[in-house]
């Protein structure tokens, strides 16, 4: 278009800065060569813009061919690196390479537009990796900057950088009402259109479906949120906050897995007492298990309980998931088939000889199952067992090595050796992995469970009682388990017991809770805004029978009203009149005179008005004349200075009403 001015080297900084900032979060996700390549490309372009280096254009065919070669090499690298997969990571790599190469080819306004539009697209690619508040704010800033870059190339050079940036910001702010309406009302199509590429949830952490020693030690150091829970009424006591994950039945001596038995139909519990209803907002973890309190009786998600009543989703949790669940805290689960018993007693042949011997000894001593459980726990408590997140390696038999030699480990070691002991003593037992406790957020009233709350414990089958939870770690490190198996501890738990007396720590905790509260609402209401939430919102607004067609009607209706309003505001001419400082000062002067009963008539010029005032009020005559004359000179004459004189005179001009005679 001929309306655009030609490209200046100074404009390039804007466009380049926007692309670089949009790509910056990808730097850690892409191969190092891409980051370096982008920096080299940007540097080359800027040096070229100021004439320090030749650019790969038609005047330099050799460089042009070099650029083509680099492009081919980049695409080959992407193909090789991602094995030809068409997915999120490969797409981002490709777009980054294109952006870097396009910079070198940026010659005219059209190329500049291409880069800016590409930058908007690059902003979106970041959302497929992270949607947290800091990411969103950062990318909003990048969006403003990209808009400012577009303003820059369209604005006359005389318009300063700050004003371009400000206009970009205003325009982004102006677009927010439309954004909100569309976000709320745009019909959401269910499900993916073509399926989600396999790599789109890589890098998520969480419990896996199996357990090998050392896995939870790694998790223990991670502060990431695993899930958040809101109880619809009173939260159960902290000692019951055992969030069950995968239940492991089968072991080969070192590795524990769910085993075949886990897939069988669940037994029905006998439920007594109250049930708790809660809503879980689970972060993506890539597996199928869903955390639930024992024992789950109802859930609304696409899930079903396994043989150990551990909740399994029908598909992998690849994105943040929200579900309601109901659990019965007081229950008994007495059903035990022959297969269950066999699976819960199985031990690999020839593994753990010393542990087996100990278990069998308790059994031959004729101890009742309950007494055996107590004996095992007493054994942990009495012997110098240490709870540590960095235990020694156990290269030989991990259970025997832990129980009789190193005697240090964390919940997995305790749970696994306890279960082996029980099985050796003839008591059916299984390992439960999951999370224990959670931090209560007093601001938004929910529990936040972090990856560092990951835990492992055991369940044993006792005749008469059915399956009973036993947490052997609590025997050693009750502080690790906020409220342990013996349950003597009351009141204070992990729920914010961190140095309440310390004011700084308290403030820090508050701040952290506030921040997490914001993060929670963000993920629940913004990121988790789905077709169901949309329906709920519209029904709350009094719209029944929400269909996509009706949604579109609503969207069109609300947008028409909103856009009409925006248009009116933006096109209102009078609101945007730019007055020169002299006119503003003169306006103040007139207002002061009007206040003492001498308003300026619409037809009066400054000198004429001053004369009338002078005639009416002789005491003001000289000052009024001086101001009017200075204003007239500034406004209509060609005297560029004198503004400060006018300003000081107007400021000092405080006329009073004439005293009544």
């Amino acid at each position, binding site marked *: 278009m*001929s309306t655009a001015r030609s490209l200046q080297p100074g404009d390039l900084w804007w466009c380049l800065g926007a692309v670089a900032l949009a790509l910056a979060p990808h730097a850690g996700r892409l191969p190092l060569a891409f980051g370096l390549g982008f920096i080299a490309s940007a540097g080359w372009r800027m040096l070229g813009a100021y004439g320090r280096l030749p650019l790969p254009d038609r005047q330099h065919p050799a460089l042009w061919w070099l650029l083509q070669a680099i492009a081919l090499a980049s695409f080959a690298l992407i193909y090789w690196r991602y094995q030809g997969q068409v997915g999120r990571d490969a797409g981002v790599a490709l777009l980054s390479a294109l952006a870097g190469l396009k910079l070198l080819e940026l010659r005219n306004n059209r190329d500049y537009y291409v880069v800016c539009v590409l930058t908007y697209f690059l902003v*979106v690619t970041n959302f497929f990796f992270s*949607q947290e508040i800091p990411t969103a704010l950062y990318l909003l800033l990048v969006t403003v900057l990209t808009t400012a870059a577009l303003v820059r190339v*369209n604005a*006359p050079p005389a318009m300063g950088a700050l004003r371009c940036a400000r206009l970009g910001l205003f325009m982004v702010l102006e677009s927010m009402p439309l954004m909100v309406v569309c*976000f709320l009302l745009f019909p959401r199509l269910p499900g993916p259109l073509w399926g989600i590429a396999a790599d789109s949830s890589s890098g998520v952490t969480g419990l896996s479906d199996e357990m090998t020693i050392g896995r939870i030690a790694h998790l223990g150091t991670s502060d990431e949120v695993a899930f958040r829970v809101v109880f619809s009424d009173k939260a159960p006591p902290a000692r019951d906050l055992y969030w069950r994950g995968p239940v492991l039945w089968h072991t080969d001596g070192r590795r524990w897995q769910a085993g075949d038995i886990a897939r069988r139909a669940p037994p029905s519990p006998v439920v007594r007492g109250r049930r708790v209803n809660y809503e879980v907002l689970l972060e993506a973890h890539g597996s199928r298990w869903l955390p639930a309190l024992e024992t789950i009786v109802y859930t609304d998600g696409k899930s079903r309980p396994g043989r150990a009543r551990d909740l399994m989703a029908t598909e992998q949790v690849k*994105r943040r998931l929200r579900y309601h669940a109901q659990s019965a805290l007081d229950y008994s689960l007495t059903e035990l088939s022959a297969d269950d018993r066999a699976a819960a007693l199985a031990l690999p042949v020839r593994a753990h000889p010393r542990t087996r011997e100990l278990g069998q000894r308790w059994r031959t001593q004729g101890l009742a199952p309950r007494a055996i459980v107590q004996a095992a726990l007493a054994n942990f408590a009495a012997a110098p067992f240490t709870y540590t997140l960095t235990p020694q390696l156990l290269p030989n038999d991990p259970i025997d090595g832990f129980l009789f030699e190193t005697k240090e480990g964390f919940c997995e070691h305790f749970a696994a050796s306890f279960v082996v002991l029980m099985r050796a003593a003839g008591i059916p037992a299984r390992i439960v992995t999951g999370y224990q406790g959670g931090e209560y957020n007093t601001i938004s009233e929910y529990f936040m469970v972090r990856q560092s709350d990951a835990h492992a414990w055991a369940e044993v089958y006792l005749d008469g009682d059915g399956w009973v939870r036993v947490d052997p770690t609590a025997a050693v490190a009750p502080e690790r388990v906020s409220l342990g198996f013996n349950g003597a501890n009351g009141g204070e738990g992990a729920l914010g017991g961190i140095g309440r007396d310390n004011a700084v720590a308290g403030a820090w905790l508050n701040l952290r809770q506030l921040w997490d509260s914001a993060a929670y609402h963000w993920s629940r209401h913004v990121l988790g805004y789905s077709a169901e939430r949309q329906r709920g919102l519209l029904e709350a607004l009094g719209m029944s029978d929400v269909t996509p067609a009706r949604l579109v009607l609503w969207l069109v209706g609300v947008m028409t009203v909103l856009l009409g309003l925006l248009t009116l505001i933006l096109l209102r001419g009078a609101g945007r*009149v*730019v007055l020169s400082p002299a006119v503003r000062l003169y306006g103040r002067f007139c207002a002061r005179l009007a206040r003492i009963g001498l308003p300026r008539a619409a037809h009066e010029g400054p000198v004429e008005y001053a004369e009338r005032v002078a005639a009416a009020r002789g005491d003001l005559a000289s000052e009024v004349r001086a101001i009017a004359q200075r204003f007239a000179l500034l406004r209509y004459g060609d005297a560029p200075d004198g503004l400060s004189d006018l300003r000081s005179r107007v400021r000092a001009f405080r006329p009073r009403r004439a005293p009544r005679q």
Partner: protein
Amino acid sequence: MDLLDRRRVYIVPTRAGLMMFGVVGLILIGATNYDNALAYILCFLLLGLMHSAMLRTWRNLKGLGLEVADAEPVHVGNPARFELQLTDPDARERYAFTLRRLLPGKRYWWWRPRFEGEAGVETVPAAGLRVDLSVPTARRGWLTLDRLEIASSFPLGVFRTWGYFRCSARCLIYPAAVGQRPLPGVGESSADDTGTAGPGVDDFAGLRGYVAGDSLRSVHWRASARSDLLLVKKMQGGGRGELVLRWQDTGGVGDTEARIAQLAQWVLQADRAGLRYGLELPALQIAPEQGPLQRERLLRALALMPA
């Protein structure tokens, strides 16, 4: 003054704007597939940005006014310089326009309009702005500015808005002054003149007031300094006799336009020589006279002579 009211300001997305719409669509598809809330949000933010850009682009142009004065006559081939006065009754901040003259002629919707002359405007201050627009000239006669396109794609370049000012301002285009033949009659008339004793061409005959078109060389600077007026030396050229430039003298020069060009050249030559000269056209006769007014009168007659 012609004011662009809202009915006369048009707007369409540019190529960059269409590209933006394409990207918004792509983001929407991606957001739906991955059910990504922030992708939805950015998609709708960009949509809002397009709306804001559309309004701001349109508002940038709407309400501008234009005044154009007639331009000084020029010879064919030289650009006609129009002085445009852009005014902004709304006193709004306005940036980055281009002004072009729309070539007259029948237009069809599929035919891209053609333009000539272009002037850039960075900003229009509240007090108005003077812009010079040079329009190329190809034919003698009246050149009416007619329609002047003003366009802008500020602030984002994703929409282009334009409108047409109707301008009645015109410029008289004199014929080109070209020809091979020498000024006729000079030889014999000057031969006659040598006999009669009288003052020569350069003889000073008094002072008169400056008239537009007078050569700077003829200004009497010293006398002007003493008076309030710019004074020009009046030359006594009457003794040279009178010269009438006749249409029939140009016979054999070529077609009508070539003959007119030859006459125009003679007019300039005669004027430069300070002669008293007149013109005789098939339908028009102008009595011999001297000075810049006479030159313009004759050139005007030649410019407007029917082809």
